[in-house]
């Protein structure tokens, strides 16, 4: 069947291949604090989905609990959303993705939601290589419960009202790599030029794609002694390189210097083009990725950009050999073996 697109539209707004404007990918007005990094990430998600020309209703957005997990209300208003329980978004996405393999699953979480209460589910969803995008809006604190340190806060970093953090930090990119994630990237909410292509690449990757996005909490953790403040991150981030995302059959002209570039084609025919800055990192080699993370940690810098990507992984549906038709589209005739089989079963039980 065909659908009518919303009629009243500003004639000058650019439309994508499907005829949607960016507004068709937006959500409700944000109620987060003005300047919160999370809102910028929402904006990047809107842009990436619009530019990729994804049918808005073919995306499902799911989250846990936190300011970050509220964010899905503020993007993709034409997509179904699910704000679940604290730390358990991965399991809900797993079930949802098993039910319908044809949708795109966008999980949004916070550093509290992922690195503390949800650490177990985070580890296991990565390990199962569920085909999803997992975005952590990482502010080093619990925004929604008013600024307590989270498990990603660096040792010695102090939030607005707090003492320096006494515990070592969990690096979610490193954890994801160890757990078997097949796409790992880090970015910064203040760097859309880096973030948008990364989101596009993550969406196009088949398998588990983590983007750990440092996303300052302006209210509780944007002060001088914090290592998750806008200023600190701007000064200390070192990109692995820049990437362009090239959708299928589309050549884009780029302003980047054609330095050391590398092009990889993704399973859906689109490709990403990498302009490497960091010569020591080979993002297609897990060991190299782990080393690069460790080196940057030791030097006190934040490694951003694409850190690791495995092109040949098998996602959960492949491993489980589930039907190509979505499981939620099967009916009695596919699912119910009928009374005849029961007669045989009964006979074997006498």
């Amino acid at each position, binding site marked *: 069947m065909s659908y009518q697109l*919303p009629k009243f539209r500003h004639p000058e707004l650019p439309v994508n291949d499907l005829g949607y404007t960016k507004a068709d990918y937006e959500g409700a007005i944000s109620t987060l604090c003005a300047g919160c990094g999370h809102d910028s990430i929402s904006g990047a998600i809107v842009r990436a989905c619009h530019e990729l020309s994804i049918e808005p209703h073919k995306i499902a957005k799911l989250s846990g609990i936190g300011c970050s997990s509220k964010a899905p209300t503020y993007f993709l208003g034409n997509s179904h959303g699910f704000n679940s329980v604290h730390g358990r978004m991965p399991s809900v996405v797993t*079930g949802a993705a098993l039910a*319908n393999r044809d949708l795109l699953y966008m999980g949004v979480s916070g550093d509290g939601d992922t690195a503390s209460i949800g650490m177990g*589910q985070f580890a296991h969803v990565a390990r*199962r290589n569920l085909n999803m995008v997992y975005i952590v809006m990482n502010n080093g604190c619990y925004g929604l419960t008013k600024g307590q340190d989270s498990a990603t806060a660096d040792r010695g970093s102090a939030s607005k009202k707090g003492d320096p953090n006494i515990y070592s930090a969990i690096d979610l990119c490193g954890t994801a790599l160890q757990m078997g994630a097949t796409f790992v990237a880090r970015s910064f909410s203040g760097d859309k030029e880096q973030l948008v292509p990364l989101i596009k690449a993550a969406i196009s990757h088949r398998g588990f794609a983590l983007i750990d996005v440092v996303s300052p909490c302006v209210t509780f953790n944007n002060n001088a002694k914090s290592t998750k403040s806008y200023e600190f991150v701007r000064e200390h981030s070192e990109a692995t390189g820049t990437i362009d995302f090239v959708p299928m059959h589309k050549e884009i002209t780029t302003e980047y210097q054609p330095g050391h570039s590398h092009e990889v084609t993704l399973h859906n025919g689109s490709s990403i083009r990498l302009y490497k800055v960091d010569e020591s990192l080979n993002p297609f080699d897990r060991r190299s990725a782990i080393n690069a993370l460790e080196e940057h940690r030791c030097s006190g810098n934040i490694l951003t950009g694409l850190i690791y990507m495995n092109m040949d992984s098998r996602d959960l549906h492949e491993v*489980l*050999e589930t039907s190509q038709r979505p*499981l939620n589209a099967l009916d009695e005739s596919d699912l119910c073996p009928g009374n005849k089989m029961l007669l045989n079963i009964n006979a074997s039980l006498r």
Partner: protein
Amino acid sequence: MIMKRIESVNDFVIKFANVNGTGSASANNLFAKALFRMGIPVSPKNIFPSNIQGLPTWYEVRVNDKGYLGRRGGIDIALSVNPQSMAQDIREVLPGGYFIYDDTKPLDLRLHRDDISIIGVPLTRICNEQYDDPRQRQLFKNVIYVGALAALLDMDFKVLTGLVEDQFKGKKNLVLPNIHALELGHQYVRNHLDCPIGIRVEKSDMVGDKILLDGNTALGLGALYGGATVAAWYPITPSTSVVDAFEKYAKRVRIDPGTGRRNYAIVQAEDELAAIGMAIGASWNGARSFTATSGPGVSLMSEFLGLAYFAEIPTVLFNVQRAGPSTGMPTRTQQSDILACAYASHGDTKQVLLFPSTPRECFDFGALSFDLAERLQTPIILMTDLDLGMNDNMSEPLEWDDERKYDRGKVLTAEQLEAGVEFGRYLDVDGDAICYRTYPGTHPTKGAFFTRGTSRNEYAIYTEKGEEYEANMLRLLRKWDTINEYVPAPIIVDSGVETDTAVLYFGTSEEAAREALDYLSDEGIHLNAMRVRAFPFNKQVQEFIERHKQVFVIEQNRDAQLRTLLMAEFEFGPDKLKSVLCFDGTPISARNIRKQIKKHLNGDNVLPLHRNTALLRAGESR
């Protein structure tokens, strides 16, 4: 002392005393199933420790021509192949009963009893003479004692050999040695002992077309027939075999013929929180899904159960109960999660419970759970227990109506949305407090909504307005009334005699209760009976209780949880509902029920609860 031997035909209790992990289970099954094939009702119960190898384990079979299948209490024949538990096993035999043991090593004289018949069969010696391989010695010892029993009880030997042939169909190298082992035991007894003993069996026709099946397998089949496609679980006794059974049959019948791919997905989750999260995610997205667990898992699932209740997401949870609290007695039975499940989660919640009492009902209710969950958009918790789940129970055969269509509940299609129906996820359009939902991905611009555990208005928009929150909570309460019309009604059995006293029971107490009522009516005490099959309690439950002056509520937990629930929902006073309890981890027995009811009737019911408990502990709870 002159001993009066117990003499009976097709009516006795036999208990096998084995060592865990020695392969005795299949031999014991062979024994029970052979009697079943002879047309004699049997109810076997595994009594096993939380252990993989080495500790004592028992297998108790009640054989009863009248068809009483509950635990009777008392042991007529003990078959002992475990020296570790021998002292206890011989002590348990009723006076006049029989103690069969491996007399390769003579019986410790201190254990001797002269009020029972002691029968020695040199099992170890026969094995050692026949087999060199120690593993074979151990395995065939079990088969040999079944052969010996066949002679002692005058069983139809052909039925036994027929069973072995069926069991190892086509595997001649297994059939012949097993039959040989049966013959070894049989021959020895025939040549050396008087047989049959006072207790014997003969062919009967009391079984009809019934089947012998465990509740967990029936549940797994119920999920398969009910159209479940996603199963997420975390291993825990006694629920593990539910998913095992689902998988076993799904592998046979859920493979797409064209592609060879699977029309189902099973995930062993990292814990029960994840398991139920997956089930909820899948149902939210329009697939039928379930999880199975036991008490500790239910505790972990509690937060998610609240979400599913409040966000109104169909969820199917099979709870195979075991003895709690905490790890309690993981391999023993109880019905002690009633309150934890009925009000599972924080805030004002009420969860739908189903109480099957036979494998057939496990199958029926198992499949029904999916229709109910989707129709009512709420969790359905099916409450079974270890006794039903892990033991073979005699049951009506399974049946499926091939005309039956799944009830997918109120779901708007793309066409309906396109045609412009008004969509508010929590808008009560039909007046039954059940609202329409949409699956993700249905329509590009219509029907998307945001599911959340936080308060929202009828259009699923976040709100903290008191009136809107309250209106929603009241609608959920009205939905509870609708639910009431959908859940299985109780089954009422009238005593046929005018009486103002009744019993009420649910789940696995049924068989023992039915038998106890027969005993009591033989003594002139006539009681009406009702088996509750669901929560919310049907109106009939209320009327039934109101109609009687006193109702004995039979349940297998310490705190009279169902009684508490009845009092909370209907405001009955404590005088009206009296408890009959068993919580020692064994299934409740008819003799126990009878004893407790008589105590109540004799006015001996003024004991404070803790003294009652002390009495039960002193061994009367068997």
